[in-house]
C-alpha cells in the first residue's frame, strides 16, 4: 500500500506539472485512505482530500471537489494545523462559489479575508490574498439573491473600511444604498467574473443579469411612486414586457410592494393606503431634524 | 450662523409633510 501510494503521488505530480488536473485528482483518489493495512494519520488524509478537491476545482468540477471536501470536513477539527485549515477553508469557499451558493460563499470568503497572519503561514497569506478574498466576498454577495441575509452581508462589507480601497467598491456602494446600476458599470463588473459566475440560468439570462434587473427594480420602487413599463424597460435596459413579467413575479412573491395596471401599462409601487404611514415617517424625520438643530445650537453655546 | 440657518430653512420646508388630495382624505 505504501509503495502504491508513493507511485500514485508521483504520477499525480507529473499530471499536475502538465496541468492535467482531473487526471491528477483521479490518480490521488485511488490512494486508499481508509485501509486497515497501514497506519494513515488524520493529517495525511486531510491533506490528500484537500489536494484532490483543489485539483477538481481547477477543472471546474465542483461536484467531485465537494465529495472530497466533505470527507475533509470530518478531519479538519482533529488536525490543528493552521496551514491545512486555511487550505480547507479556501477550497470550501471556492466550491460554494462554483456551485453558485453565493451567499454562503460570500460568508466564507469574508472569514478568510480576516485571516490573521501567524508565523506558520506568514509567507502564504499576504495582503494581496486577503484583498482577493474580500473582493470575492463582495462579488458573491452582489450575485446572491436579495433577502435579509444578503442585506446584512452588504452592510458588513460596506462598513468594512478595507472595502473602500477595492475596485469593486463603487458597485458595492450602489448595491448597498439600493441605487440604480447603470449598464456600463455592470459590464465593467462582469469583466472580472469567473466563467461559472457568468453561466446562464433556466430562463436564459445570466446570474448577474437577473440579480441586476431585480436590484434595479427594487431601486426604482424607492425612486418612483409609479412608472410606465416603457420607461421602466428603458431604465433597466430590457424590453417593457420583460420588465412587466419580472415586476409581476416579484410582487407575487412579496419581494416588492406594488400593483400593476395592464391597461395603462403602469406599475404603482406604493399601495395608496400607505400614505398615512409615509406621513408618520415624515413627522418622525421632522422631529429628528429639530433635535439635530437643537444639538448644534447647544454645541455652539446658544 | 449660516450653517444653522440653512438647517432651519430646510426644516421649515418639511411641513406640511404630505400635500395630496388622497392624503387629506385619509387624514380626515
Amino acid at each position, binding site marked *: 500500500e505504501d509503495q502504491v501510494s508513493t507511485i500514485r503521488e508521483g504520477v499525480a505530480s507529473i499530471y499536475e506539472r502538465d496541468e492535467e488536473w482531473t487526471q491528477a485528482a483521479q490518480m490521488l483518489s485511488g490512494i486508499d485512505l481508509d485501509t486497515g493495512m497501514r497506519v494513515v494519520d488524520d493529517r495525511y488524509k486531510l491533506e490528500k482530500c484537500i489536494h484532490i478537491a483543489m485539483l477538481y476545482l481547477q477543472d471546474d468540477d465542483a461536484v467531485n471537489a465537494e465529495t472530497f471536501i466533505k470527507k475533509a470536513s470530518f478531519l479538519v477539527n482533529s488536525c490543528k494545523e493552521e496551514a491545512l485549515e486555511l487550505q480547507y477553508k479556501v477550497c470550501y469557499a471556492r466550491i460554494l462559489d462554483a456551485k453558485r451558493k453565493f451567499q454562503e460563499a460570500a460568508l466564507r470568503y469574508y472569514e478568510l479575508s480576516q485571516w490573521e497572519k501567524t508565523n506558520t503561514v506568514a509567507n502564504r497569506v499576504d495582503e494581496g490574498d486577503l484583498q482577493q478574498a474580500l473582493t470575492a466576498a463582495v462579488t458573491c454577495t452582489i450575485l446572491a439573491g436579495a433577502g435579509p441575509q444578503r442585506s446584512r452581508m452588504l452592510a458588513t462589507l460596506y462598513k468594512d473600511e478595507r472595502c473602500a480601497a477595492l475596485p469593486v467598491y463603487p458597485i458595492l456602494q450602489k448595491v448597498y444604498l439600493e441605487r440604480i446600476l447603470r449598464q456600463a458599470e455592470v459590464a465593467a463588473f462582469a469583466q472580472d467574473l469567473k466563467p461559472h459566475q457568468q453561466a446562464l440560468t433556466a430562463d436564459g439570462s445570466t446570474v448577474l443579469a437577473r440579480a441586476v434587473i431585480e436590484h434595479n427594480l427594487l431601486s426604482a420602487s424607492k425612486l418612483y411612486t409609479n412608472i410606465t413599463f416603457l420607461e421602466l424597460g428603458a431604465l433597466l435596459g430590457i424590453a417593457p414586457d420583460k420588465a412587466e413579467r419580472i415586476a409581476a413575479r416579484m410582487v407575487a412573491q412579496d419581494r416588492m410592494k406594488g400593483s400593476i395596471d395592464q391597461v395603462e401599462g403602469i406599475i404603482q409601487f406604493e399601495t395608496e393606503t400607505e400614505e398615512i404611514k409615509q406621513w408618520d415617517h415624515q413627522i418622525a424625520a421632522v422631529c429628528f431634524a429639530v433635535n439635530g438643530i437643537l444639538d448644534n445650537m447647544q454645541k455652539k453655546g446658544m | 450662523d449660516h450653517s444653522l440657518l*440653512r438647517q432651519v*430653512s430646510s426644516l421649515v420646508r418639511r411641513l406640511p409633510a*404630505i*400635500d395630496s388630495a388622497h392624503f387629506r382624505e385619509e387624514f380626515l
Partner: protein
Amino acid sequence: MEVEGRQVALVEQFVLLAKNVRGRGAAEIVKQATCEPGLFAFGELLDTPSIQELQGSEHAAALDLLRLFAHGTWTDYKNHASSLPPLTPPQILKLKQLTVMSLAENSKTLPYDLLSNELDISNTRELEDFVINDCMYTGILDAKLDQRQRRVEVQASAGRDIRPGQLQIMAGALEDWLKTSEELLQTIQEKVTYAERLSEEHRKHKAEVDARKDEATKSLK
C-alpha cells in the same frame, strides 16, 4: 439632511484659502468653490472680507457669480449672462442642482413641465435621470417621481443660503408651528381631562349600582 452636515467642512476649506488672498486670487477661489462637487453652501465664503472686497473691483463679476450661487437660479443666470463669467459644465450642473433646491423651497410638488423650463431639459428620461442622479443620489433632495402625474413629490430638501428677508418668513413659520403645537397640546389635554372625568363618573355610577344591588340582595335574604 446628511449633506447639510458636510457643507461646513467643505466651505471652511475655501474660507481659509480666501483669507490669504486678494483680487485675482480671491476670484479664483470663487471659481473653485462654485465647481466643487458636493458644495451647495456659499454664505460663509460670501462673508469673507477678501471676497467682499471684490465689489467694485475688476473682479466684481466673481462676487456677482458667488451671490448667484448662494441665492440665485439657472434662470437668473440666463437673464444676466452678459454681466457674469461664462460657466463651466460643473458650474452649470451645480447651478441647476441649486435651482431644484430653490424650487423645492416653494412647493412640495414640482411638475415635470416646471422643471423642464427651469432647467432647460426637455427630454423626460434626461430630466428624471438628472433628478435621480444629481439631486436624489447626491442627498440634496428626498423625493419620489410620479410618472402618472408627471411630477416630483418632495419630502425634504437641503437648505440653501438665506436670502435677505427670508429670515422673517422662517421666523413666522416657526411661530405658527409653536402656536399650532400649543393649541393642539391644549386640545389634547382637554380631551384627556374629559376622558378622565367621564371615567370617574362611570366608576362612581357603577359603585352606586353595585351598592344598591348589595342592599337589595341583603333585604331579600
